[in-house]
């Protein structure tokens, strides 16, 4: 079918808002972003099929029937997204329980390696300092400590 401009604009706005929210650090906002994005995608799928009357034989003449397949796909997608959002919400809640906020955290190990690289030590430093097997390296406390 020929796309309806209102639909297209709505899909565009939903996508844009969804992506913007996804870039936030707070999980609740990411969740909102996912919901907006999924609604945008569902509308997009709906646009792919013909609009018309109820696709039931005997109720609507065949040439004026809407395409039921995109609607069936959207139903499936809605159910799946519902489950996923519920899980993400649970994750955000658990995160809040554990650390007191719901922000996405950095990978500690990544940071540690980045710091080693900054000091130009790299993994070789680990090799050397432990090559003799003489106990834990003196630097370890400093290295593994959260910043």
């Amino acid at each position, binding site marked *: 079918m020929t796309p309806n401009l209102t639909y297209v604009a709505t899909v565009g706005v939903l996508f844009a808002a969804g992506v913007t929210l996804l870039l936030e650090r707070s999980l609740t906002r990411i969740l909102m972003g996912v919901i907006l994005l999924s609604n945008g*995608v569902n509308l997009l799928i709906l646009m*792919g099929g013909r609009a018309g009357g109820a696709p039931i034989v005997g109720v609507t003449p065949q040439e004026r029937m809407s395409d039921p397949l995109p609607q069936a*796909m959207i139903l499936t997608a809605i159910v799946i997204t519902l489950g996923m959002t519920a899980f993400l919400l649970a*994750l955000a809640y658990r995160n809040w329980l554990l650390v007191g906020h719901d922000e996405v955290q950095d990978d500690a190990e990544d940071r540690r*390696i980045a710091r080693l690289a900054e000091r130009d030590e790299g993994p070789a430093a680990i090799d050397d300092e432990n090559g*003799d*097997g003489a106990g834990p390296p003196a630097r370890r406390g400093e290295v593994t400590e959260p910043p």
Partner: protein
Amino acid sequence: MTGLVPLPVVMPLLGAAVTLMLAGRPRAQRAVSLTVLGATLLVAAVLLVGSSLGGPLVVGVGGWAAPLGIVLVADQLAALMLVVSAAVTLAVLVYSIGQGLADGDEETPLSVYHPTYLVLTAGVANAFLAGDLFNLYVGFEILLVASYVLLTLGGTENRIRAGTTYVVVSLLSSMIFLTALGLVYAATGTLNLAQLAGRLDALPDHLSLMLQGTLLLAFGIKAAAFPLSAWLPDSYPTAPAPVTAVFAGLLTKVGVYAIIRTETLLFPGGRAADLLLVAALLTMLVGILGAIAQSDIKRLLSFTLVSHIGYMLFGIGLTTVVGLSAAIFYVVHHIVIQTTLFLVAGLVERRGGSTSLDRLGGLARLSPLLGVLFFVPALNLAGIPPFSGFLGKTGLLQAGIEQDRPLAWALVAGGLLTSLLTLYAIARVWNLAFWRAPHTGMPDRAQQAGQVRESAQRPGVMLPRLMVASTAALVICGVGLTAVAGPLFDLSGTTAAHLLDRTPYVRAVYPDGAP
């Protein structure tokens, strides 16, 4: 014969329901899971034989034929992937049962593990068997939702942190996939793969290129191809060892499988070949350079996983029978080897109390068995002859040389360099964790109590038998790949030829849609 096709999906799902009902009875749960996965392996093997002899096996679910109905298609590629995935999931299940027994799960069983694990295998099987794009999406979602639960098992802070990244990235890739589905349907009016094969050809070039790009983006995230790979090393290592193992072995390969399927069936002609080749080169190099920087075995292995996805993309990007055949061989090899290495990392964690390279040492002396279990698949991964990694890489390099153009030569050079650097990375693990003098901080010296560690005087015994046995079985499987490399290469060769030819698949599923 076609009646067997839905079983790899249906049996694990039913098994999941049954194990969920048996929540308080771990012994019954274990029996059900083992039976189901064992039966799945058998069915998958029969499907492989059947599809090799008589062409793709097609089932229209509910009696609805293609293109309207949902079809499940077991062609050689799908059946081969099913066999490997069933074997690997079975081995990992045995491993996790061993771990559970050793940790005393008998009293406080984690009742959700078995159902979720079975749902995961059902999702993987569904993705392999899917005959239309939407069912492929559903398969992905089933395996993803199971993987979310498995990744965040226990809900500790670390796992929640890693799980968050994983869930958000996966959700995003699912959204992109879904968008691609909507666009494909709007452009062609169908989602059946066989019918799409004909209809996409008729589309204007720019339109089908856009569809191809969107699908590649979605699958690229799932397959962890650079630059879409950053989520993987961040999220996999924190999960329990068996979970990481099965994720590393299977989940990214489902993405690779989807790329193979769509690139050969829907978008033939190799329009995206150069893009894939460049992505492959960058994936290999960035992945392995990341691995070298790591000081934790699990993270290091995660980076090598990313790096070796590059080899598979290399083979797919060549779009020749030889290249694709080598890529399929490499997928099979890599599923087995990567899973094995992560299982070994789990054993190392048990024996040494950590997977951090600065806290390990002397494992080869403390537990020679563990040394062997690590050494063999590690060399296999690096591609030392006569292991299957060597054969797979040789196939890929040969296919690259045959193409004889600058980009292919760059890939050949990159592949050799990556192989060398992989050897360096795992040699570092070997030297630090296994070969040097035992670390003073190691648990056996500090005499950390605990029922598992009591028999520290007899190395190897303190590791739970089932865990060692399943890991050893996978190691032997990995070595066995060398023994069956000839027939396997023949199989992957005919599979690749059929994939590039397209007609056997299309004719079996939807004869009217032949391109």
